[in-house]
């Protein structure tokens, strides 16, 4: 394989791995937030805010790795 094809393959596999990790993380946050809202419906507003912030923190890590994969494509695409 030429190096460009290899880089694009790496970017594709990397994007898939990022999706797995992020989906696991955000899914866990979502499920436990739903559980806590079900237990304490009066605290729903606080839980929702905390849930969005925690999801954003996970998303931040995911975007770091997305940028690595994008760089793999951009830098070898020229």
């Amino acid at each position, binding site marked *: 394989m030429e190096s460009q094809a290899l880089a694009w393959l790496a970017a594709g596999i990397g994007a898939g791995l990022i999706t797995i990790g992020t989906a696991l993380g955000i899914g866990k946050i979502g499920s436990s937030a739903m559980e806590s809202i079900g237990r304490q419906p009066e605290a729903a507003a606080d839980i929702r805010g905390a849930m*969005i912030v925690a999801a954003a923190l996970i*998303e*931040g890590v995911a975007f770091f790795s997305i*940028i690595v994969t994008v760089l793999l494509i951009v830098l070898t*695409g020229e």
Partner: protein
Amino acid sequence: MLLSEGSKKVQSLKDIEPIHVVGEIFHEVSDQVWIELYLFGFDLSITKLTIFMWLASAILLGITFSVRNNLLLVPKGRLAQALEAIVQFIRDDIVKPNLKEDWKAFMPLFSTFFFFVLMNNAIGMIPYLANPTGSLSVTGMLAGMTFLTIIGGGIRKNGVGGFLRSFVPSDVPVFILPIIVLAEVLGLFTKSFALAIRLFANMIAGHIVILTLFGLIYILQSWLLAPFMILTNLAMSVLEILIVLIQTYVFTYLSAIFVGMSVHPEH
């Protein structure tokens, strides 16, 4: 735009190589210099995103000055009431829980953050306009202001000694203390850096996805895909409006958390 340029120059779909579509997408989401300007050896060129940032700021200033005369205890007029609801949300849900009794000093900063980021995010949803927050320079500047506020707010409230002591946790064994202190100091920088990357990547990702879905028409060389892509992009645009609002909230909320952690280190 990808589509308009394609219809002008290209006779058939076969003329476009897939690799050019990728280049076109990254050209479309990146910044372009419109007016070159060099002052005192600095590159102060006016770019596409600078113009749109000015446009967003002008809209914000216009809204602010139009409701300025209605500033009463009970605001009159639709715009003033809508703005009051948003400002109240910022005060009660973002600033007050994180900054406790010092909320008044930080309220102007965080409401400016909120409205500036919101307007700069939202302006990218209008066709033919771009969102300035899709540039790392803009988000880096915003995160830099958060960084300075973390340091300045901590020093103003606790003094230089108190601010430095917030890096040293009290109930930690001595032999791992250097590692913890190093991690805390590094965390000061990574927090702000992650703030910039998060907003930038979120805002640029939606545009890349929309352009890629349209680019699939060229990559797969079939006009039959166009109706499906328009429907998919309609759904993506709805999702992106949601992301615009969520990321505005997240940027302001995380900034408030970080500043609050520095102003009240015991929390």
